[in-house]
């Protein structure tokens, strides 16, 4: 690069933008937004209404997206770390949500499946579910880091058994919690018109950001993901770092599970968070992170999660025929993933460069 040619770097800026990882989910988001804007601008309408308690709430598709996409965004944080460090994915998060959600309700309900009042403070239920989810995460982590089992195979165990464990926690019953405070975490804080899950997701993001900024976790995770051998030679403990990412994912699972049960104050262990593991992995991929480990970018993954929810809400909004829904989703996902492939991005960047270069050639000549 010749420093004298800095002035003509408009094309380079564009090329650089295409190379930036966060460009992928932003582009996907823009494409979906533009599509909706063209087809039906009322998609973006947000109205201020009241719920049946008389509290003000905002409603509209955009609000639905930031509301329902939050659990996925929280899971995407943990999934990104796991992917980066262990070069594989945890496919048991859906089952783990069923478990941690069941634990929350079990603690709140005590022995009765439909109590009139809570049997334990909500914070206790949440903390217990955190401990349970983190120990299941630790179980996966041990299998991956110490026994060196492929992550997908190791987590297959919990994927298979998880929902039965969840059923067993509540004796096959479907407990229902009646309380005024509990629904707040999956609904609205009285007087605040924005859904609480969005705040929880932001809080999770800020905590992760602070942790990554003030500790060496990011560096360690990336170096283990890029080359385990070298990181060991440099004094890191790869097994421990992999292990810890699974425990962090366990914590994310507990938070997501807590929001899920708070939404409807009950849980159906057989369908709750079904297939969410696939969406979480997709969020990581849409965020432009390599699924074979190494470098990662958490904000990209989070945006990726909201892109998936954007897509889901769009499909609901346009009432795509029920049996064709997965097919539509697949088509869009393929398009997004191809768009985000490095080769394609490189090509787009080059095309922009070429468009500019004749002009540059003239001015230089």
């Amino acid at each position, binding site marked *: 690069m010749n420093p004298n040619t800095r002035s003509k770097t408009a094309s380079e800026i564009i090329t650089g933008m295409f190379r930036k990882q966060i460009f992928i989910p932003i582009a996907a988001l823009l494409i979906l937004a533009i599509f909706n804007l063209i087809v039906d601008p009322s998609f973006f309408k947000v109205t201020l209404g009241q*719920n049946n308690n008389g509290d003000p709430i905002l*409603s509209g*598709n955009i609000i639905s997206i930031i509301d329902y996409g939050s659990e996925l965004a929280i899971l995407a944080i943990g999934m990104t770390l796991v992917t980066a460090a262990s070069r594989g994915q945890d496919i048991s998060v859906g089952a783990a949500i069923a478990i941690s959600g069941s634990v929350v309700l079990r603690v709140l309900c005590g022995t009765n499946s439909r109590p009139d009042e809570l049997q334990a403070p909500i914070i206790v239920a949440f903390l217990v579910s955190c401990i349970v989810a983190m120990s299941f995460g630790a179980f996966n982590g041990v299998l991956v880091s110490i026994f060196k089992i492929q992550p997908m195979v190791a987590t297959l165990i919990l994927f298979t058994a998880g929902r039965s464990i969840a059923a067993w926690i509540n004796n096959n019953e479907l407990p*229902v919690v009646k309380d005024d405070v509990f629904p707040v975490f999956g609904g609205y804080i009285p007087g605040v018109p924005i859904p609480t899950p969005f705040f929880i997701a932001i809080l999770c993001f800020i905590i992760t950001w602070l942790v990554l900024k003030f500790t060496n976790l990011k560096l360690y995770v990336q170096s283990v993901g890029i080359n385990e051998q070298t990181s060991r030679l440099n004094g890191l403990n790869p097994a421990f770092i992999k292990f810890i990412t699974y425990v962090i994912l366990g914590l994310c699972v507990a938070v997501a599970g807590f929001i899920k049960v708070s939404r409807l104050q009950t849980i*159906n262990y057989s*369908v709750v968070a079904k297939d969410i593991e696939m969406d979480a992995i997709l969020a990581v991929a849409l965020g432009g992170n390599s699924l074979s480990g190494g470098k990662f970018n958490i904000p990209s993954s989070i945006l990726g999660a909201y892109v998936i929810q954007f897509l889901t809400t769009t499909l609901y909004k346009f009432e795509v025929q029920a049996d064709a*829904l997965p097919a539509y989703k697949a088509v869009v996902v393929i398009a997004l993933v191809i768009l985000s492939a490095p080769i394609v991005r490189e090509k787009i960047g080059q095309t922009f460069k070429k468009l500019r270069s004749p002009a540059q050639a003239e001015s230089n000549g």
Partner: protein
Amino acid sequence: MKMTKIFAVAASMVLCGSAFAACGDEGGSNSGSSDKLIKVGIINNDPNESGYRTANVNDLKATFTKENGYDASFSYSLKNEEQINFAQKYIQDEVDYLLLSAADTAGWDSVLKDAQTAGVKVILFDRTIDADESLYEASIVSDMDKEGEQAVEWLKNQNLTTYDIVHLQGVMGSAAQKGRSGALNDTAKELNWNIVAQQTAEWSSEKAQQIVQSVIDSDKKFNVIYAENDDMAKGAVAALDKANISHGVGKDVVVIGFDCNKWALEELKAGNWNYDGQCNPFQSSYIVDIINKLEKGEKLSEKTIIMDEKGFDATTITDDDVSKYGI
């Protein structure tokens, strides 16, 4: 030789095992009543599969007890091959009756032929299989079409001024979805009911909530929620609550659910929902009926027995119904 040793050990273990089993049997029949216990092998799907299955399993367990004159063994699996293995084991154990709720419709011919040669009478419950009718004594099936028809009939009798329906479907292609969707689709076409939205929420309350939310957000008017199970109805109601739309008896939106979970019937009792259709999990009384007839040597009048399905209206449901039929 090593192999012979292993074989010898295995053979002796089998012998010991059968000796013990024989002892067990004798003990059982001695302690029971003077009649010989009827030996039944029951193969069912995993009780954790759903609330329906849990109720079904509990019902069977409560009926086929020693007190009622049965020596029953239970096996659960969601996989066909495993179920077939269980069936073979029961045939070797020489059970009198094999009760079967098959995970899959195909692959049962050869094992049922074995049962026939061994003199084991086979009764199918809840689910049918693709096999020749001569291979089983009777088949007790849930009538999913009828469930849907009853609910739609009820809806018709409400004489609403307009019918603008949000239809939440189960997992596409499942028997329950087909039956429950079919009835609504037919009647809607016939009577010109307006289906505002028809989407699958895959039995999930969360997805149902999102779908109804999206219908509300696009300012579409509706006055009926037809959800093909209770969970989806609950999700829909959560979305209504959020948008401050009233629902239930005498309110703006009529809510219909299916499966008769206990909590759902309580919602019905409280007037928050309007109707709940049942998929009857209580099949044991039908099975006992058949076994009694066969034991007496009577002929069964028909092979396929279709169960009665109930439906509950919020205005007429009683506390008794809630505790008796809630699952």
